């Protein structure tokens, strides 16, 4: 297995250590690691890290999933914000 994985986040190619979560990849992609926009229009990033708070909801290959519990795979397509 390669030491790094390449995935697509909001149209940008991102390179992460293999085995990284999508939550980690959001941060590697640059910026503040924002996953979604809140009801009130504010940026939200992963918060609880363990699949409880639902702040890290993103689209992974078209399905809404939690970034903190999803491991990056080669060629994965991630879209942030609702």
């Amino acid at each position: 297995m390669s030491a790094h994985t390449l995935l697509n986040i909001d149209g940008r190619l991102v390179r992460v250590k293999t085995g990284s979560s999508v939550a980690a990849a959001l941060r590697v992609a640059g910026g503040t690691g924002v996953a979604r926009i809140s009801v009130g229009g504010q940026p939200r990033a992963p918060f609880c890290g363990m699949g409880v708070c639902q702040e890290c909801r993103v689209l992974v290959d078209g399905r809404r999933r939690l970034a903190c519990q999803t491991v990056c795979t080669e060629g994965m397509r991630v879209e942030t914000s609702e």
Partner: protein
Amino acid sequence: MSSVVPERCDVLVVGAGPAGMAAAVAAARSGASVVVIDDNPAPGGQIWRDGPGAKLPPAARKWRDALERHANIRVRSGTRVVAAPSPGELLLEDAEGAVRMRWSKLILCTGARELLLPFPGWTLPGVTGAGGLQALIKAGLPVEGERIVVAGSGPLLLAAAATARSAGAKVLRIAEQASFASVARFGAGLARWPGKAAQAVALADSCYRTSSHVVSAGGAGQVESVRLRQGNGKEVEIACDRIACGFGLVPNTQLGRMLGCALASDGFSARGLQVDARQATSVPGIYAAGECTGFGGSERALAQGSIAGHAAVGDERAAAAHEGERARWDAFAAQLHRGFALHAGIRVLPRPDTLVCRCEDVPFSVLQDCSGWTDAKLHRRCGMGACQGRVCGDAAQFLFGWTPPVPRPPLSPVRIATLAGLGEVVGGADARQ
């Protein structure tokens, strides 16, 4: 539309942390078919979470190897429990599909989540739980060169700080709300427990401050600073990139409660699942072990898990063999709880406009006008979002004393296709083992 696949096993273990792994290995020794499900990508729970940023201790590797060695243990990672559509059956979902799993014995090892309390600015990117930051770093979050303030309460703050430092971050402060006296008592008592002496040394960290708590997080669009209240009553503002703040652990009892298991009512196991000497819950056929019975640490979880696994397959002798170990760590757990009790002062953390329900943006002032959880939910949307009231429910319980109702299915957000697939039993009794 994919249908829900029926499967069955003798012993179903929910949770692959220390308790779940010990339970599975214990049960497997009898030859029973064991399935372990866990919502994380790999076994280990929180304390032994794997990932590019994790350093697994030998114990973690030993238990994971044990899981793999047993041909009659099947591990389903990335899997959540959604519902209990009929007695002796759980509906499970993962990224690919769904399974209705029939079980003869059920062992709940659902662990604990962090108590995350609201304070002004807590929704800014860069604010996480303390255990939350540790989990994110283990899963590959880069924090090299970042300035981090750890706050809240409990020994988890030290573990989180250690993980952050190992990953190249600068921990500027560890703000513990408990008093020096409480923590010192706890630290002095640590020498009794093998392996915990190191923790006592960690408490002497130069950044560690007691009687100290977060007042607010500041920044435009992300964390830029944190305001802390110190023991001397003064406040200090520290420029930083992250705030990792958690106030201890809350047992994950949702699945147990939905299945009808009673909660423990006494002492420090308050709000954990009630279990007897064999880790049996109040519902026949269902056992529970680990942090979901009350916070006690990984050593106790292993002991409880072993007892539960042996008891579930009827091996009384093997179960009894772990009683001494469990008793030792029960005493440690009691000490832990005394040391880090949350003091009333942090109930005044939120300001009127501080959001309490993060999913639906419901502020503190709105909840202050509500008569209880049902009122807050039905009329103000608190708890109607994706976290299904977990974060705000914990906060509301702490701030107002509101008890949350018994959880209803689905226990977590679930694809409609999965729920729609429960119409007919596909193939009847000929389920795969």
